[in-house]
């Protein structure tokens, strides 16, 4: 449904996107994850026909975003990371205005606006001026606005940023609903746990490049090369942390009360060898194991490696 093909985009010396390729299948909720400046917004605004790619092609439902921009616009609903609403316009009028902007016949607009306000849980706000709505409500109204022309694809740039936990939960609920409506949703965030719950698949990007993509479970597995380990000892935890720091394949070793945490990269056999060495050296080991990581830590591990590789070059 969405296809990026070797897309590059420079802003002066800044490489916002570099040979970025990504395929999003129809009906998925797809998360685009990366730290600030990774190029998420750039990728999304190229998809939304607002910027031209420097190189490469982008298609939505088989239509090219440059040559068939009009066709693409009819198929996407785009919510930018930062957006404003108009003064002196009521919520229903706001939606009706955009309905008109998508050539929806005049007779259907008010009915459509009422239905959308219902969908985003603002049914009693039709007559309220949009600039007086709370941030969470504006965000939901903007989401309703994305849906006026019943697009197949939704592009949501950081829709949860700046929202309180309750408003976030509501936003997630609406996105789940969109999935049931068989929309393809591309959603970006730099806050990971959020996406893990609602996304079918995620892509991790950093410095304009795709670092990894797949299901949440796959991503967590990809980053297994570097594992977060935890050892609990009866005493001398500080000493153990210092000892571990001297061993190969171990980084970020630190004591935390009676336990020591570190990042270990190596095979199962090396892990066994490490445990043996610690016991032989006389530490009273009570527990030894891998810390189950969530997506966020997996992400840190993946982008961290990327950064380390860059540094080595």
């Amino acid at each position, binding site marked *: 449904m969405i296809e990026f093909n070797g897309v590059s985009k*420079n*802003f002066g010396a800044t490489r916002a996107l570099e040979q970025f390729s990504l395929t999003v299948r129809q009906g998925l909720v797809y998360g685009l994850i990366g730290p600030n400046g990774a190029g998420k917004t750039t990728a999304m*605004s190229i998809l*939304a*026909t*607002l*910027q*031209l790619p*420097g190189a490469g092609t982008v298609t939505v439902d088989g239509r090219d975003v440059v040559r068939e*921009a*009009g066709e693409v*616009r*009819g198929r*996407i609903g*785009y919510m*930018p990371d*930062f*957006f*404003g*609403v*108009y*003064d*002196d*316009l009521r919520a229903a*009028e706001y939606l009706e*205005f*955009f309905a*008109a*902007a*998508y*050539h929806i016949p*005049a007779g259907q607009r008010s009915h459509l606006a009422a239905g959308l306000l219902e969908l985003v849980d603002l049914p009693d706000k039709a007559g309220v001026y949009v600039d007086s709505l709370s941030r969470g409500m504006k965000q939901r109204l*903007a989401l309703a*606005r994305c849906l006026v*022309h019943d697009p197949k694809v939704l592009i949501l740039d950081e829709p949860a940023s700046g929202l309180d936990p309750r408003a976030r939960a509501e936003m997630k609920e609406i996105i789940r609903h969109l999935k049931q409506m068989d929309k393809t949703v591309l959603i970006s965030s730099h806050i990971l746990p959020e996406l893990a719950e609602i996304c079918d698949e995620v892509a991790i990007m950093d410095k304009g490049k795709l670092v990894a993509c797949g299901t949440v479970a796959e991503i967590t597995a990809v980053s297994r090369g570097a594992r977060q380990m935890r050892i609990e000892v009866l005493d001398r935890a500080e000493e153990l942390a210092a000892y571990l720091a001297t061993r190969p394949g171990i980084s970020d070793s630190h004591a935390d009360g009676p336990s020591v945490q570190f990042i270990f990269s190596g095979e199962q056999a090396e892990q066994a060898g490490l445990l043996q060495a610690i016991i032989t050296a006389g530490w009273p080991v009570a527990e030894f194991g891998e810390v189950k990581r969530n997506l966020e830590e997996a992400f840190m591990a993946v982008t961290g490696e990327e950064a380390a590789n860059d540094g080595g070059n």
Partner: protein
Amino acid sequence: MAEINPVLLKELRQRFRNKKASWLLALYLVVIGAFVLGFTYLNWRNAPGFYQPSRSQEIFILLSVAQLFLLAFVTPGLTAGAISGERERQTLNVLLTTRLTTWQIIWSKLVSSNAFVVLLVAATLPLYSIVFLYGGISPGQVAGVFGFYLVTMFLFGCIGVACSAFFRKTGVSTVTAYGLTFALSAGTALLSVFLIELDRSYRAGASAASSLPLPPDFITGVAQFLQETNPIFVLMEILGTNSILNDFNFGLPYWGVYTVLYLAAGALLLFWSARLLFPRKNN
């Protein structure tokens, strides 16, 4: 039936709903009304009891020129934030992802702002009736003046819209739009007066001027052309004061030159503004 452009409808709704609109209208009428009534009062005090057509002619000229100055003041101000304002409020991107064309967006912005200016001008019609009361003015002259206002506000509005599409900041756009409007209104007048003086000294055979590289006919031609593109000269001419040079025939009457030039320049500015909203390779 063709439907009214959605941006235009939205703009009109926003503009006329805003309290600022009624304040501006009131202020406009107060300024221009005070001007005319004050002048009439002075007239009456100096020569109480009777009125001369030449006096009402004077009031008509004053009123019309005052209105031109107010237009030059109001129109760029209303349009110079049309696009940059949407950018600053972060509403432009969303608008550009709809099925609206950039041309529709630009055109609606201009029409909605100018609709308001037309309202301002129309609201001053009762003041013109005072002038009519005294006689000495033909309805054709009044129609000419209002036609002149429409052409003039079109170009002034286009200048504002183009500045707002070109500059990111409304502040910069507003200053530039006023600057260009001023250059068009005062700059062309000053330049034409300068050229006429130059021509005069040349014809007088002053030795310093006889080294001029340009033929004198060319200079007066340029001066006349400048006058025919200058709103103040053209308005005075419509008001019957014979202020424009009449040495050359450009194939069109002075108001024809003015109208064609202003409408064409405005249309070009609008096309350029619409192009500025297309996505670009860089930036």
